[in-house]
């Protein structure tokens, strides 16, 4: 491809950010605010805040076949259709159009659009603690994190203060408090379970989830209207997304160029300077190939896609993938497991109800292995997430017999209080859990398909059994009836917390990134999506990505000013 100097100039920016989801939006905003001319590349279409949320204000009866997916949907999108419904299908990719190879069953849920999965995320925001940052070092699984809590603490505060997180301070060493807006409120059955837990075990407590849903107006957004329709996009800006928050803020600086419909196929390496010089892009509308250049590149394509992009960027310096001198690129793939838990019914509080639809449940922070407990047959830990409610029509329809007036009367009145809860558990970093490229199968743009080879192991399975047992115990002690423990045995990917394929570490021989998310082998490349995670901890990870991104952006900017990049 021939590029004239003039075109090259037109295609040159201070910074390029690949991907516009949670971490990419943050990178773009931070770099733009620092005055860098930034190109934000997104492979999907543009989604503008409010105007591109077509289902956000629809009523249940506006969906002619309810929220059932069609037979065709299930055939075309065997994976995505297990996550989407007609209400939010437009924020998920088509599996048929964007295939991947499952060496073992793996649900890779994706949203290729401006905002990525920040439109459909669960919005739970938890800090990691030194229990998590020191875990690999202490028990020897994986490499040591190159940072500790004190390195990230102020950046957590910075991220929380910008996005707006509601939550309750609990003063726990394993789950540090943050900058919180007024918490959402627990209902009476959740309080009841919480009281019982506090009475029976000093190491456990039940608290309201910490979520990026606003309990008051914040940064020209919100408050949350308690509709619990977040995954359709929120016209009130009641929760944080790239679309409602970071991208408009980046745009407001005048430094942002947003380019949707742009698949980045390769990072370009400058052999002379031993740095990245830019990216190659396929325009999905015109199928034209473009090159864009910049002083620094932030890769935020999301864990699996980031690994794929780097593996696909080969040169004489990097025959096995960009920055892959360690051989770790694509390896150590992790996802939390959230398949195991319990359900229970309680006979009390029949005179109590609620109004509004709180967009989150409760959290029982990690209580296992706070000190290494030799009596347990697994390492690390889990937290419990759940919610309490009265049985409504969708629950009752299965359990009431017959038909007619009596059936209708039962169906339309509140049933007993129930709680559903499950463990969100840590997954160890196994080298063999990995992403690689398929050398034979290509997608419609001629790019190799990604192969995902992932399985949970004994440690995760033992933890799931423990989750079932401890959940049931907590229910029993709180007087619940009809306790049912379950394990859905969902495959990897189902918790949508993929991470670890380009991990941080001290040593370039065993890791891809240093403590500032800077690539060991190409100093002007930064990776701050889930790929960078050295261990998975058990907390929902997005807040950590945001904090790491803000921190890495600051570092990159300073290095750039010093002429180091």
């Amino acid at each position, binding site marked *: 491809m021939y590029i004239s100097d003039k075109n090259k100039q037109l295609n040159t920016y201070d910074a390029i950010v690949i991907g516009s989801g949670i971490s990419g939006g943050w990178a773009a905003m931070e770099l733009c605010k620092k005055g860098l001319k930034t190109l934000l590349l997104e492979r999907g279409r543009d989604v503008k805040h409010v105007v591109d949320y077509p289902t956000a204000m629809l009523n249940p009866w506006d969906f*002619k*076949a309810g929220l059932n997916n069609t037979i065709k949907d299930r055939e075309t999108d065997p994976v995505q259709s297990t996550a989407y419904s007609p209400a939010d299908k437009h924020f998920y990719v088509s599996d048929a159009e964007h295939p991947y190879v499952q060496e073992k069953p793996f649900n890779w849920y994706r949203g290729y659009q401006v905002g990525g999965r920040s439109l459909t995320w669960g919005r739970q925001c938890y800090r990691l603690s030194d229990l998590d940052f020191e875990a690999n070092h202490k028990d020897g699984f994986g490499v040591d994190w190159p940072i500790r809590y004190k390195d990230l603490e102020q950046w957590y505060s910075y991220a929380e203060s910008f996005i707006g997180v509601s939550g309750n301070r609990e003063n726990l060493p394993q789950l540090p408090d943050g900058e919180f807006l007024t918490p959402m409120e627990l209902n009476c059955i959740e309080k009841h379970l919480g009281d019982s837990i506090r009475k029976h075990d000093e190491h456990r407590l039940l608290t309201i989830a910490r979520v990026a849903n606003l309990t008051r107006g914040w940064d020209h957004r919100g408050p949350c209207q308690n509709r619990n329709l977040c995954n359709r996009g929120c016209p009130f800006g009641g929760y944080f997304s790239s679309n409602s928050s970071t991208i408009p803020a980046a745009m407001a600086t005048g430094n942002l160029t947003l380019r949707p419909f742009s698949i980045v196929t390769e990072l370009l390496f400058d052999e002379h300077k031993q740095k990245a010089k830019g990216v190659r892009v396929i325009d999905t509308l015109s199928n034209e190939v473009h090159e864009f250049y910049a002083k620094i590149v932030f890769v935020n394509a999301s864990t699996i896609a980031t690994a794929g992009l780097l593996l696909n960027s080969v040169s004489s310096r990097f025959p096995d993938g960009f920055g892959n001198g360690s051989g770790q690129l694509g390896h150590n793939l992790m996802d939390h497991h959230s398949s195991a838990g319990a359900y229970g019914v309680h006979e009390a509080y029949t005179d*109590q109800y*609620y109004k509004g639809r709180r967009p989150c449940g409760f959290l029982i922070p990690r209580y296992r292995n706070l000190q290494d407990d030799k009596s347990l047959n697994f390492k690390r830990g889990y937290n419990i997430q759940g919610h309490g409610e009265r049985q*409504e029509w969708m629950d009752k*329809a299965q359990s009431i017999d017959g038909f007619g007036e009596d059936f209708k009367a039962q169906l339309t009145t509140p049933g007993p209080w129930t709680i559903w809860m499950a463990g969100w558990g840590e997954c160890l970093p196994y080298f063999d859990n990995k992403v690689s490229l398929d050398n034979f199968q290509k997608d419609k743009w001629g790019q190799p398909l990604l192969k995902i080879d992932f399985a949970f192991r004994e440690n995760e399975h033992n933890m799931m059994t423990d989750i079932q047992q401890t959940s049931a115990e907590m229910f029993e002690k709180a007087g619940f009836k009809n306790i049912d423990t379950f394990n859905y045995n969902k495959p990897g990917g189902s918790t949508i917390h993929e991470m670890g394929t380009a991990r941080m570490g001290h040593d370039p021989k065993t890791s891809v990134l240093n403590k500032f998310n800077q690539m060991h082998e190409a100093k002007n490349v930064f990776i701050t999506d889930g790929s960078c995670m050295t261990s998975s901890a058990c907390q929902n990870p997005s807040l950590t990505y945001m904090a790491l991104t803000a921190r890495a952006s600051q570092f990159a900017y300073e290095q750039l000013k010093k002429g180091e990049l």
Partner: protein
Amino acid sequence: MNRRLYIKSVFGLAVAGAASFSIFKWVSMNRAIVPADLIHKKEMLAELAELIIPQTDTPGAKAAGVQDYIIAVMLNCTPAKEQNKFIDGIAELEDYTADQYGKEFLKCSLAERKAVLKHMAKNSSGYSYKILNKINNKLFGKPFFLKLRELTVEGYCQSRLGATQGLAYDYIPHTFDACIPLLKNQKSWATK
């Protein structure tokens, strides 16, 4: 022929020795249905749904248009196997009505219709073991009555009349009140 018993016996044999299951039956269960077969039954489906969720002090299933929902979900969102099970269920109900009362279902009195549906409900109680029901439902689809009732409930509770009058609908709640006293005659919330 009592189809239910037939299927149960086939199922039993299939478990005992998988080879006994007829390929013809399998193909026939998985054939695509003709939409008209279902659309022609709209009036009957409306009456059946109304028996399940009748008009009381709040609207019933018929007024809420549940028949349209049932047909939409059946035609667009239901695998062929279950569609066939459902169509066969309607045929069985019609046969039974003709046997018992010598007339069409729509010509029956309310009491007769109730008796017919009660018969169908009894016929779909399934096995006393939960796991066998699960396998049975998976292999052969949900029994007709249970499927009909499930769709009626979904269709009703998400319809405009069902959600706003049969239940309590809060379009934009604004606030969340975690614990409030249950009101007299409090209806369930339509959405969660």
